């Protein structure tokens, strides 16, 4: 398995560290890029400004509630873009509101996952995500 490029869009530093720890504990070889708001996420994905050299991630972990441009808008722009739309986007949020779940899938999120209650549970979720998206699933090569 190659080193996975993961873009984590998350404004809470506590959650960022938990995802880092979870990936580490699940022994997932990764390069993690963190965007702490929606604008930064879009700049990275669309390689704007200082992010001109950013790589297209293998997976996006997307929080919904973000300052400024929120996760739903980021999701919409990714899935409306001709090439970026192929990137799997997993919504990882504390919300379990039916409207958020529905809206996310309407915007073509690949999965909707509620942030697990413990680090152990998060590690398991990341393990499953990694196995699924980086090993089991066949995705188009290149960009």
């Amino acid at each position, binding site marked *: 398995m190659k080193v996975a490029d993961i873009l984590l869009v998350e404004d809470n530093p506590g959650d960022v560290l938990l995802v880092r*720890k979870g990936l580490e504990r699940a022994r997932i070889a990764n390069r993690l890029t963190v965007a702490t708001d929606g604008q930064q996420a879009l700049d990275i994905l669309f390689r704007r400004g200082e992010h001109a050299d950013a790589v297209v991630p293998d997976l996006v972990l997307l929080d919904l509630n973000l300052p400024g441009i929120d996760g739903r808008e980021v999701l919409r722009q990714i899935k409306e873009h001709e090439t970026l739309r192929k990137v799997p986007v997993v919504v990882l949020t504390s919300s379990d509101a039916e409207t958020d779940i529905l809206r996310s899938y309407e915007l073509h999120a690949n999965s909707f996952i509620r942030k697990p*209650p*413990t680090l152990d549970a998060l590690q398991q979720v990341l393990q499953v995500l990694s196995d699924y998206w980086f090993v089991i699933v066949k995705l188009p090569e290149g960009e």
Partner: protein
Amino acid sequence: MDVVFCACPDAATEATPASAEARTVASVSELAPDDRVVVLGPAAATSPEGRALLLGGGLDLLVVLGAPVAARARVAAAEDLVSLGTILQEHVDAQLDPEHQATELERARADLQLFAYAASHELQEPLRMVASYTELLCDEFGDQLDPQARRYLDFAHDGARRMQRLLADLLTYSRIQSRGGPLRPVSADAAVDGALEALGAEVRRTHATIARAPLPAVLADERQLVQLFEALLSNAMTFAGAAPPQVRIDCTPPDPAQFAGGGVEIRVTDGGLGFDMRHAERIFDVFQRLHTRDEIDGTGMGLAIARRIVERHGGRISAVGEPGRGATVRFTLPVAGEGP
């Protein structure tokens, strides 16, 4: 029930509305215990008793006491009192109307549910951080801590995990009404299968034996029916005592003396710790526990969830038990084809 005017002297007589069975009292001390509606004029309001009765404090207020909604308005003159008295009487009549009371009760329940949902949902977020980071602290720095500090940390982590379980159960409870699905004919046997699948780890761990008689198709919300059996089976296994749990599920037509309205009565019987019949009602209340946490580690929500689900289906639930000799929880559900 009377509408009581405890008004300033010059307003008292005129203030009595003809339509109301109103009593005019000179002082607050004359109020009858069942008076729920009180109009206080400026004079009475300034008395110490009057002040005590005023919910918001201040003078010239019209206060409706004991009614679900406290209505207030300024009382400026006797004429206003008369018209307000009429409005009040209508309000009282409306409150006494069973249909209105049912709606009010329903609304109060819905409010409470919304509150329970919002509170438990919002509390989960900060708690997730506490649980995750105490876990991380234990894992990464546990061996650098002296035993006492490690013990403190373990208590903190256990506390956070326990509160997470309590909130999760409270959320489940509050969603039984708000997120219930439609009632359809479903196989109660399949629901038991589903519950046993969810409880697989617990069944294996406790070496439980579950004896099952065939159950009929019932009219139920499938997900909640699984939840119901899950709660009851988990309960039976939790309170098994030292020996491996022996649980039996069977059914019978309901005893008309106990449960009117037909359907089927399903029973979940265990040979476990049982309980004193003094607690037969209380065990269905939220967060009720008959054992200390050292003895049994539960949230005290299992049977409350079960009752709520059964009641949502129009059924009844009760339990019989004897200390040391097990317990039987029985509940009724509408049978598919008979209508709810």
